[in-house]
């Protein structure tokens, strides 16, 4: 059994339970205690994960859960990412009626993502899917706005649909192979009828793509990013992807060569990045823009999944990209939650002068998402694009690069107003009005700090890519 191998998951889950229970007994002014509880749980889980990362590749629960470098990195990134989301929530939810419930749901969903990340059995995969997605529905609806309700409904319906597809996929694969553990699946899948294997796998991929927010199961992402609260939006566009994409990687790696799965996943990746980029172009709300941008980022993240096993760079580059994406995306969302009332790109006019640190953080994180060196996402993009060509999918490399260019269009639409105030300086009257507007840049402290920290970290991790690479390759 070796349940202790799952200690980080257990700690996060128990932390969620503790936050929930404590929240029921605490006065509203004292709900911050539950935040501390949740934070302590996440930090302990991260520490435990870091310790486990130094160990060797182990299996828990009769070979249904793998504790290897990939699981370790996912645990570390997911726990610290949720911690950052918790920091954003501190500004937004403090003393609100749903505070402790929100923290509990965040931690439950994180546990689900961690289960997905290590799953080595189709049934565990199904459990992880449910544990990740069900708390999300509640979290999105927690905003209690019209948009929030719509987004929660949309997510719930799509989640139900794709959840059924995933479970159907599990059933079909179990039916044709007689097993659900990954250790036995490859041989039996190769011997099973190709049509049934394809149908089952497509069902599984559909479910995981819903969790990751990739085409064609992405419709809920922009709505949820726009309608949910800022902290929840930052969480749901980041943490579930870690589990879902790692689970997809493990699944694709064991598929037999009876069908050309690399090309299939490669096409999904291309569709995700292209559609996400094109749709993001017209958005006016920064959060919705980021929502679409995450759809395109999933496309980039699917590139190493497509070449799973075909290039030695595939898994390390996936992990590195996931870590970099988490930091950078959380940073961009943190800028938006630091200025929660500015929901138009144009309303960022003059931020660069009024709040230089925040403005710089926004530029660094957005250019980071484009893949500008020396940020960590650049290193991720470089290694994933290289992995694709290395595995013989040169066309995917070209698409990655072209889509990076496409993405620059809309990120620049957000960057432009931040520094745009310089041009009208000759018109004195306008300048006075502008200064009045700039004075109104009241920022939420925790979000602003997290934004600056994330921007610094994204650059530091890019420059320190050597040690980071050593971590993700397990050396």
């Amino acid at each position, binding site marked *: 059994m070796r349940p202790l191998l799952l200690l980080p998951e257990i700690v996060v889950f128990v932390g969620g339970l503790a936050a929930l229970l404590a929240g029921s007994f605490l006065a509203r002014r004292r709900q911050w205690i539950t935040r501390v509880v949740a934070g302590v749980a996440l930090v302990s889980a991260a520490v435990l994960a870091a310790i486990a990362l130094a160990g060797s590749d182990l299996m828990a629960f009769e070979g249904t859960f793998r504790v290897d470098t990939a699981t370790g990195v996912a645990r570390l990134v997911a726990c610290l990412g949720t911690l950052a989301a918790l920091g954003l929530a501190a500004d937004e939810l403090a003393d609100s009626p749903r505070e402790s419930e929100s923290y509990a749901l965040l931690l439950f969903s994180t546990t689900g993502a961690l289960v997905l990340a290590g799953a080595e059995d189709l049934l565990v995969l199904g459990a992880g899917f449910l544990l990740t997605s069900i708390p999300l529905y509640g979290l999105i609806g927690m905003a209690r706005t019209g948009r929030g309700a719509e987004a929660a409904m949309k997510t719930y319906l799509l989640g139900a649909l794709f959840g059924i597809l995933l479970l159907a996929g599990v059933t079909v694969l179990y039916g044709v192979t007689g097993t659900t553990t990954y250790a036995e699946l490859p041989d039996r899948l190769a011997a099973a009828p190709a049509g049934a294997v394809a149908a089952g796998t497509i069902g599984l991929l559909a479910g995981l793509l819903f969790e990751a927010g990739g085409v064609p199961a992405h419709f809920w992402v922009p709505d949820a990013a726009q309608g949910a609260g800022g902290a929840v939006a930052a969480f749901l566009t980041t943490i579930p992807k870690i589990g879902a994409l790692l689970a997809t990687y493990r699944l694709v790696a064991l598929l037999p060569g009876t069908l050309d799965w690399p090309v299939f996943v490669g096409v999904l990746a291309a569709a995700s990045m292209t559609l996400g980029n094109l749709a993001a172009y017209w958005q006016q709300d920064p959060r919705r823009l980021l929502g679409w941008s995450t759809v395109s980022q999933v496309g980039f993240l699917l590139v190493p999944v497509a070449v799973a096993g075909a290039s030695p760079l595939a898994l390390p580059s996936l992990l590195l990209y996931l870590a970099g994406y988490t930091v950078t995306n959380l940073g961009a969302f943190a800028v938006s939650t630091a200025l929660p009332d500015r929901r138009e790109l144009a309303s960022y006019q003059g931020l660069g002068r009024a709040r230089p640190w925040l403005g710089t953080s926004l530029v660094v994180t957005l250019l980071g998402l484009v893949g500008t060196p020396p940020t960590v996402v650049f290193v991720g993009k*470089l*290694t994933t694009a290289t992995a694709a060509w290395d595995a013989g999918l040169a066309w995917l490399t070209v698409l990655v690069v072209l889509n990076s260019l496409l993405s620059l269009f809309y990120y*620049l639409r957000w960057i432009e107003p931040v520094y745009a105030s310089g041009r009208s300086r000759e018109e004195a009257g306008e300048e006075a009005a502008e200064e009045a507007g700039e004075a109104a840049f009241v920022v939420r402290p925790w979000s602003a700090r997290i934004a600056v920290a994330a921007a610094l970290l994204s650059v530091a991790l890019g420059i320190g890519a*050597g040690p980071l690479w050593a971590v993700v390759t397990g050396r």
Partner: protein
Amino acid sequence: MLSLVVFLPLAAAVVLAAVPALGHRVAAWAWVGATALDLALVVAVWAGYRTPAAGRLAYEEQVPWIPGVNSSYHVGIDGLSLPLVALTAVIFLACAVYSLRDDDRPRTRAALFLFLQGVSTGLFVSADLILFFLFFDLSIVGMYFVIAGWGHNNAARSALKFFLYTFLGSLALLVGFIGLYVYADPHTFDMVELAAQLPLNGSPVAGGWVLAAIIVGLAVKTPTVPFHTWLPPAHTDAPATGSAVLAGVLLKMGTYGFVRIAMPLLPQAWRAWAWVMVIVGIVSVLYGALVALAQTDLKRMIAYTSVNHMGYIVMAVGAAGLVGNGPAEARSIAVTGAVTQMVSHGLITGALFLLAGVFHDRAGTYDLGAFGGLAGPAPRLATLFAVGAFASLGLPGLSGFIAEFQVFTGSIAVAPVSAVALVGILVTAALFLRALQRVFTGPEAGHSAGFTDLRPAEAWAVGALLLLSLLIGVLPRPLLDVIEPAARTVAELVGR
């Protein structure tokens, strides 16, 4: 030592950006101080420079960066990069001096320019493709903010066009680099190793595609026809110092890439594409000159002469790939001419753009028709502009002549058709003389009345650049002694 040259401006930029309390005067002088110190370091590097063995670099430093893909922080210089490193230091110092009296957010501007200086120097000393790409991309980001933040008229739009266009180029470059990496065995991004390995010699199809990607990337940056359309708006709307840096330093990144990356790493593919390069070069020369002739806007005119001057370089590097068409000596002369032209164009066009900035500063326009008889109220401006114009059209005694003479000697010897490009020199001469005549001679007209002549800071900045051009024109040996061995090596490498 090289790292110090690269990171000193970057460190100064961080300090200037992070300390908001600095006054305008302090920031402006700090900028001058940092650039002067950097130039002093470059002079020390030049003094200690000994030509390295063929295929090696001087002042090498190497630290692993992304070990998974064998990319490292690898820097070093040779005869191709040293002149450009020096050029970068000189131009940025000139810009710092020129801006001493400009009170438009001097602290952030100084920080931004120091950042640009660091990344530009970094690019010229990179010996790793990813490091090269990093600096290439950051230079685009920096220049975007210079144009968007300190430009005029349609600055936001021009900056956007510049960013998107050159970003496309940089991404094409990245595809090419990944291709080189994938075909190399063992996989590496290190230029020195790749030059020794020649990963794509022997696979002409893949080599052709990889070179095509790299050429597109570099051609956008250079820019050559038909990828030049971002250049005129970017120059017109950029501030004077921004234009000087863009033309003087950033454009060189494209042409430098040809001699540093495309030719030594992909010699076989380069030889196959050499005729295309020669023709693109000739077309750029003629097109740039003719379109410049049609301009009424001073800055657009200078911008198009840049297309023309970059065309000579492209033609020369193309000619250097025509192995077997003439004496090997000629190909090496063509490369020497190309590198000399990079330095010469940087100095001259940098000076001309700074002078163009004076027109906008005093009169708010670049329209050639808005001035007349300006030599009366502004004799210093008239003198320096005339020297710059004569240098640009290739008058003997100035650096442009040394460069273009070698470009043509080398190119015509291997590809006689290059002689067509001589027409370009004629047209450039015509357009500069016409501009001089319209603006500076005749009765005072338009904005000329009450035009304030060059202030000392402006005169010193421009004068120093032109003085260097004169010095190279009269005493070219010290420069050529550095360039020639490296050019010979490149010509040999292309022949492999």
